[in-house]
């Protein structure tokens, strides 16, 4: 028997589902992120969660289950700001730490940080501005 408090140590579709579900509970309670997400996902959250299971399955298990264009999806979000990516990463890593052992947490953190950096560049980088921007810009 595994106890309910034992940390997961194996990346699987099930562990990804648990991560995504727990993470978005936090997001929807977060004073900074909740309003942004509520505008982007005004109705049923399950389609978004299902899409995120597929995304992280593609990234962590190379299943190719997700096919989409996250850069474009983020470009159209009003009020998206650089510092919100840091908040997102903090909550994501916190959730990983609650569910996963340290090795697995680090694997998710490494990917998430790189993907976030790539999205930040796509959204905020301009050749005529210095990079990185200061938080709050």
């Amino acid at each position: 028997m595994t106890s309910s408090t034992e940390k997961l140590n194996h990346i699987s579709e099930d562990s990804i589902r648990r991560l995504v579900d727990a993470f978005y509970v936090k997001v929807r309670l977060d004073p900074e992120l909740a309003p942004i997400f509520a505008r982007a996902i005004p109705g049923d959250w399950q389609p978004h969660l299902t899409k995120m299971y597929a995304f992280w399955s593609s990234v962590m298990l190379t299943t190719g289950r997700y096919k989409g264009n996250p850069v474009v999806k983020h470009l159209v979000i009003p009020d998206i700001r650089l510092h919100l990516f840091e908040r997102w990463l903090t909550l994501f890593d916190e959730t990983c730490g609650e569910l996963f052992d340290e090795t697995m947490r680090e694997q998710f953190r490494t990917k998430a940080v790189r993907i976030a950096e790539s999205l930040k560049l796509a959204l905020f980088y301009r050749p005529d501005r210095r990079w990185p921007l200061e938080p709050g810009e």
Partner: protein
Amino acid sequence: MTFVVTENCIKCKYMDCVEVCPVDCFYEGDNMLVINPDECIDCGVCEPECPAEAIFPDTQPGLESWLTLNAEYASVWPNIAIKRPEPADAKAFDGVAGKLRQLKLLPPATRLDVASDRH
């Protein structure tokens, strides 16, 4: 940041990368694939999938000219999202030096219709 397809893809073109890419950011020339740096989200899933070990992060030094080539042809060649069989002689060209001279700048001959639809 992005991943970049480099010389050893030329004439090998295994296309395993295409199946795992979550954002469909590969574009297909006649004998090579490239990554669109504006669409790649740097997830790195493709890198270990490439049998020819032709994909690298752009943070690796010395890849500037390949990054330019990837960006340039991603805007010209058609998108590829489904793997097809690699060229029959792919293995014979894996690791061969100086393949850049053999790069074909046209879209794949069998897909010219696709290319003309998009542009």
